[in-house]
């Protein structure tokens, strides 16, 4: 499995008490597989992504990325692993105002210290994949919401991550644009063999074959009646 979340528990202080956000959540996603996770506001979807993306540690449980158990990794090692093996697509595209569309993608390679000719070629190719070749020199202010999100997807795929995590990637888009972006994520995941988790309210925008999971009470369960009914094949639930 490219991504294993095993019995993840996350607690946060809530006044004088402690609130349990994730309470033994587990999920497994293999290379090239795409799963969708939905849940009510405040159910812990973003926390789940933060733990899976090594942006915050879990209070207990295990996160394995591309075969590496991250439980005992130091912060710097987690940062390194995030850079090489995890791609993040954010709810708002989170682009840098001073960078062009092409530079947003190249930046990822620069952070990893290998912005060479191959990396530049790949950045151009990814822009082509998301249909923005003619907007390569445009800055975020010159792009539409959908275009920005597509740049965000291309950026997340730049370093050929083992795991792609998308947090409400279509929340700010209309339904048509949202479907396009979802299709792009699925296509990118399949093409690059990336284990992909899409956290979304808009499950209807997802291709029919993507299995759905539901996060509630701090645990992940297979969504009743969804294609995820045969999801034993693509992802497990506990």
């Amino acid at each position, binding site marked *: 499995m490219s991504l294993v979340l095993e019995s993840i528990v996350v607690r946060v202080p809530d006044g004088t008490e402690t609130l349990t956000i994730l309470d033994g959540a587990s999920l497994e996603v293999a290379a090239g597989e795409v799963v969708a996770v939905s849940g009510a506001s405040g159910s812990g979807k973003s926390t789940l992504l933060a733990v899976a993306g090594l942006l915050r540690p879990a209070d207990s449980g295990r996160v394995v990325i591309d075969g590496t158990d991250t439980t005992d990794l130091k912060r710097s090692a987690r940062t390194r692993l995030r850079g090489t093996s995890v791609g993040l697509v954010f709810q708002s595209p989170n682009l840098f105002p001073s960078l062009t569309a092409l530079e947003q993608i190249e930046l990822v390679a620069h952070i990893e210290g290998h912005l060479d000719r191959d990396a530049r070629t790949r950045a151009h190719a990814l822009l082509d994949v998301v249909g923005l070749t003619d907007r390569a020199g445009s800055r975020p202010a010159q792009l539409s919401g959908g275009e920005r999100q597509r740049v965000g997807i291309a950026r997340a795929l730049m370093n050929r991550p083992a795991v792609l995590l998308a*947090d409400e990637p279509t929340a700010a888009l209309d339904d048509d644009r949202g479907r396009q972006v979802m299709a792009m994520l699925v296509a990118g995941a399949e093409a690059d063999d990336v284990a992909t988790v899409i956290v979304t309210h808009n499950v209807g925008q997802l291709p029919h074959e993507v299995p759905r999971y539901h996060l509630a009470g701090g645990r992940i369960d297979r969504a009743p009646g969804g294609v995820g009914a045969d999801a034993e094949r693509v992802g497990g639930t506990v």
Partner: protein
Amino acid sequence: MFLAWRDLRVARGRFVLVGVVISLVALLTTLLSGLASGLVDDGISGLRGLPLTDLALQPGAQHSFSRSSLTPTNLQPWTDAAGADGSSLEVAPLGVSFFNARTSDGNTVDFALFGTPPDSFLAPDDRARAALAGPPGLVLSEELRKDGLKEGDELTVVGPDVTLPILGFTYGGSYGHVDLAFSSLEVWQNLVYGPSANGRFSAIAIRSDDPTVIDSFDQIDAAADTATETKDAAYAGSPGYAAETATMSLITGFLLLISALIVGAFFTVWTIQRTRQIGLLKALGASNIYVLRDALGQLAVVLVAATGVGVAVAVGLGQLVGSGVPFSLQAGPVLTSAGTLVVLGMIGSLVAIRRVTSVDPIISLGADS
């Protein structure tokens, strides 16, 4: 500095704004440095120009020629040491006093009179040496020629009311903010003490760069009842010198401090505005070192460029300053103050830098849901 360069280019308006402020501080600092150097020059250039390395004064004179009075008895041990076989030591009695003189057409002129034997190593050049060896008279610094004085004119020294001819002019320089004049030691003694001089003078000028000889100064001082100090230390004896340099240093120090606060405040605000971007960089896998390099690099570029512009403008303005204002730009002090400005600016931004390292990448996800 992938992101930093592009930020500088795209958000140039705000960087130009802070850059202008830094440039103005650099401009002021450099101009002050020029004024400070000019004042120092005005105070000590005459002494600095003399080919001596040390001065022996009366003990307790506190660097001041006017508080020092020596006699041939004090000079003798020094002359003996200089006359020893193979000694590289050179010594000469030196008289220093300030005088006001009247020209034949009633104008007045101030000068610092340095009296020295015509054959001493202190005589500025051969022409002056020859002039001082002849009939009594004065050899003036070139600056006094600009006041309309010329060779052959007569000056009546106010006080002793002695009239002396101008024998010639020699290299420029001033001491205690008045122009220099040279005379023979005899003429100087006559002007200061009249007939009861008894061979007195202000100090003993010393020239030696031999460390063994320099080590023997304490011994000679003990025998001669003198106190030797270096030429640099003797600058403090120039009237107003210590107060002027302290004032200029204080103003420069405050300017640099203000600059550090301005730069620190700007970059703190700029970093707060960039907090989400910094979190995003870290979320994309950037280490603290990467983010710091980006932030510090950007800061250094702004500081160095703005300081460079400020210094360049100050140097340009310095060329326009007339001779009425003591102004002298020297590479050493200018580069030192510019370097200090950059370093203090970096230090002033430490708060911002600390913030850069403490940003949590999780903020890139927005509010926890």
